[in-house]
């Protein structure tokens, strides 16, 4: 008998091991759902998959009776736009702060401790301040996401810049580059793939801030909808919405990974590592 830590599952077994818990969860859900629905066909807590499908289809295909919008697509579009704007704004700010702090010791002396402190501020705690400062419009929500992810990304990039071998910076100088050209031709191109990675890792937090902001002050959006429907115990809408958001998050993660591989073929196979 081989030791447990040396046993490698082969392909069919690997697939079976992946599918087993998923199937178990589905079956458990179906069993409880059927039991409740048999007792009370009006039960809202554990809706049948068919009910969820119908509700989702209605949200996606039939215009809302009051506004005439296709609510599902409206929510998705608005939420993704907020997410994209917030993350891009945060990432750009973080890129500038992180690179400056990591490369230039004089900038780092003031930025580095400042970023460490700012990163400790719980972003949701300043949501009221943002709502007061920027109103209840789009800006406050975008700012919450940007402020939420920027310190994390900035500190990550600062660390990555400092990890660049000192030899490279010396080498760049012996090849005629000053601070600016070293920044532009040595540091930035090597930091961009790391920025993509940092953004990918911060997307989870970004979704959290998006949904929190939409739950508190919004009139549309994925987060707004599920918190609105909570009042009606509309699990037939909340569950598919959650699944949809999970799918979107997974896709964004995948897309950023693919983009990184595509744009920076050298990344991950660096010399001398």
């Amino acid at each position, binding site marked *: 008998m081989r030791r447990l830590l040396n046993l490698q599952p082969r392909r069919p077994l690997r697939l079976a091991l992946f599918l087993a818990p998923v199937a178990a969860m589905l079956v458990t859900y179906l069993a409880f759902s059927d039991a409740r629905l048999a007792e009370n066909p009006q039960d809202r807590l554990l809706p049948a998959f068919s009910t969820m499908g119908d509700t989702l289809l209605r949200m996606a295909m039939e215009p809302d009776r009051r506004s005439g919008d296709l609510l599902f697509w409206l929510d998705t579009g608005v939420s993704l736009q907020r997410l994209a704007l917030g993350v891009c704004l945060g990432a750009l700010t973080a890129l500038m702060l992180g690179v400056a702090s990591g490369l230039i010791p004089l900038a780092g002396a003031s930025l580095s401790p400042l970023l460490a402190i700012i990163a400790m501020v719980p972003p949701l705690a300043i949501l009221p301040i943002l709502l007061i400062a920027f109103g209840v419009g789009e800006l406050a929500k975008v700012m919450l996401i940007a402020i939420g992810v920027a310190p994390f990304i900035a500190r990550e990039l600062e660390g990555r810049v400092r990890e660049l*071998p000192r*030899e*490279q910076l*010396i*080498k*760049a*100088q*012996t*090849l*005629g*580059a*000053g601070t*600016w*050209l070293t920044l*532009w*031709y*040595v540091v930035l*191109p*090597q930091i961009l793939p790391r920025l993509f990675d940092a953004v990918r890792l911060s997307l989870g937090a970004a979704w959290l801030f998006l949904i929190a902001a939409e739950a508190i002050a919004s009139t549309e959006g994925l987060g707004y909808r599920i918190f609105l429907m909570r009042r009606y115990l509309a699990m037939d809408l909340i569950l598919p919405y959650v699944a949809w958001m999970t799918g979107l998050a997974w896709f964004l993660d995948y897309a950023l990974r693919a983009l990184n591989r595509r744009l*920076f*073929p*050298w*990344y991950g*196979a*660096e*010399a*001398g590592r």
Partner: protein
Amino acid sequence: MSELTLKNVGMRYGDTVVLERLNLILDSGTFCAVVGASGAGKSTFLKLLLSELQPTEGSITLGGRPLPQEPGPERGVVYQRYSVFPHLTALENICFGLERTQGNALFGRTWGAKHRVLRTEARDLLEAVGLTAAADRYPGALSGGMQQRLALAQTLALKPELLLLDEPFGALDPGNKQTAHALLKQLWAERGMTVVMVTHDLSEAFTLGTRVLVLDKVREDPHSPERFGASITYDLPVDRSAPLRAASVPPVS
């Protein structure tokens, strides 16, 4: 001319003396190999010549002028690792120095005819180090020996007066090492720059160098080893014609 002189150069970190009383005149075109035990200050010596560190005592001049306070294109360097930029292809790595020095301060790159001339120059250099086939590959896809040859070409593109080598072939297997030695010897013979190579491989020092310096502590205080630093304990000229001359000595009758 690019004569390198060190006058009474010393380097200390706080109370720890690393190097002391280094006096040296290297004629232009010398291939100087520096050997010494680990911790003898070889790397510090090289950092002083690169201006990565400033000596705490004494002065260094290159071609009669004080050594610039920061690294610059008059001095080239090849390290054992991290010598080439991982995000640039082999050809782009060679173009790096040419682009930065020929472009303006804002963009640091060239366009049009100037750019084409520069690419041709870079391709010639790639050919000189035998990497033409690898022009569009990233360093991560090159072997250690190829990376070091690329690093040499990248540095030589700017025709530095002084070439500094920090154990450049220390990580190579014997075969690759020999190829690299032959290449370096040939490039040095063609271009005649002054070379300072730090190594801990004695045979490498004597096969390549025309002058071998040994760094070691002259004075030792067993109670506080940090009190005295290393200095040049041996300064050996390597006369390449010597074996030939010995052979031509008429036999004793």
